[in-house]
């Protein structure tokens, strides 16, 4: 439970940090997203109810930051990010046996893929709302770029979170041939 609260605090801090990370102009203004990686680690290291709670917190913060209320309508309803996080985190949670066997690299790759999927889903919702679908180089980079960056950041963030999980005696860590044993090999 302590580890869950640590993750909630980290999600909040990461959300604030993301505000001050400038978009990367060499990557067609792709943004850096850290929160999804933390949530997806939580999906592996927490039991299902806490995983859902973490997805709720992360999606709530994202929507509170970004949802646009224009005149008398909300462009994408508050709550969609929560649903996206929950669905993708549930998929990651379903792959927990792999993580327990030490195959954490699959989850690093999936963290990137899922980060890109969240952005793709948001873009599709905006496009349907605004009435035209445009896919050009910039769009692909702004969807795929953050995914790629999340994939690259994931091993480091996973390692740090795993260390914190051990420090806080998280009881849901893999028992047999876990992350550490695999990393040591």
């Amino acid at each position, binding site marked *: 439970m302590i580890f869950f609260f640590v993750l909630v605090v980290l999600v909040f801090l990461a959300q604030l940090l993301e505000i001050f990370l400038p978009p990367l102009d060499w990557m067609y203004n792709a943004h850096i997203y850290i929160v999804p990686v933390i949530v997806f680690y939580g999906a592996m290291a927490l039991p299902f109810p806490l995983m859902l709670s973490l997805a709720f917190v992360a999606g709530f913060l994202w929507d509170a930051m970004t949802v646009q*209320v224009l005149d008398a309508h909300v462009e994408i309803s508050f709550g969609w990010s929560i649903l996206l996080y929950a669905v993708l985190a549930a998929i990651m949670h379903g792959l927990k046996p792999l993580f327990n066997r030490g195959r954490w690299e699959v989850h690093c790759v999936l963290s990137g893929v899922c980060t890109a999927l969240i952005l793709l889903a948001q873009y599709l919702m905006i496009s349907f709302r605004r009435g035209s679908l445009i896919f050009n180089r910039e769009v692909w980079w702004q969807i795929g770029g953050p995914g790629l960056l999340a994939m690259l950041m994931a091993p480091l963030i996973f390692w740090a979170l795993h260390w914190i999980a051990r420090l806080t005696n998280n009881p849901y860590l893999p028992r047999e041939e876990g992350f550490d044993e695999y990393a040591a090999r």
Partner: protein
Amino acid sequence: MNRSSIVAIVLFAAALLALFSMGPTATRKIQSTFFQVISPFLKTGSGLERQITSVRAGLKSLEVLERDNADLKVENRSLKATNEALRDVEHEVNRLRQALNYRERSLFRLVPAEIVSRDSSTWWRTVTINRGEEDGIAPEMPVLTDEGLVGRTTTVSPNISVVLLISDENCRVAASVEGSREQGIVTGERVTGSLSPMLDLNYLSKQAELKPGQKVYTSGVGGVFPSGLFVGTIRSFQVRALDSQAKLAPAVDLAKLEDVFVVIGRK
């Protein structure tokens, strides 16, 4: 699936349904409260960001000076570094003096504000400013600088506000072209790879004959933006099947925004 998971799913679904059924007013209220909670972090973070940027800019200048003046003595370099620091101060003084002058000669009642964060999401072009309800700001108020139009406020909390930039596709501005009877709607592009994107002036008549260099101003139609605010300059113009479209360079360099004014009424 155990009982606790089922309970969690039911609670999660109920909370999600409650959020989905919220209207714009409730959504704005939640956002306003959220921004109020994080405002100390935003303001502190913004201050730190400025300091870091200033230090980095200073270091860059030193590097250039060192390369160009490798034969200069240490004393000379130290003097140049001091000069550089003073230039930063001078720049800030000039910036504030210019802002003050504009506020005094403007026809509008303006609230000066500082940008505390920018573009925190991929799909919306927004900035956050350090003024809110307590300063008389409300949603749907125009935001500008002495150079021209910047955007409009959307979510407003007691001492922080979100500004939807003119470069966002949702920020539609009724505009007219200088030296012609043409009127259209200025919008931003949905996705852009640049921090200073071009704007589109749509719904111009098919007979329009516009030239690069012509200036575009707000027409006052729609009620949010008063007429006569400089929006941008035409860069290119094309006739389409049913109408014409012009591409504009924004009047304000949105990538370098530091200070803005919120129009809270007329004098």
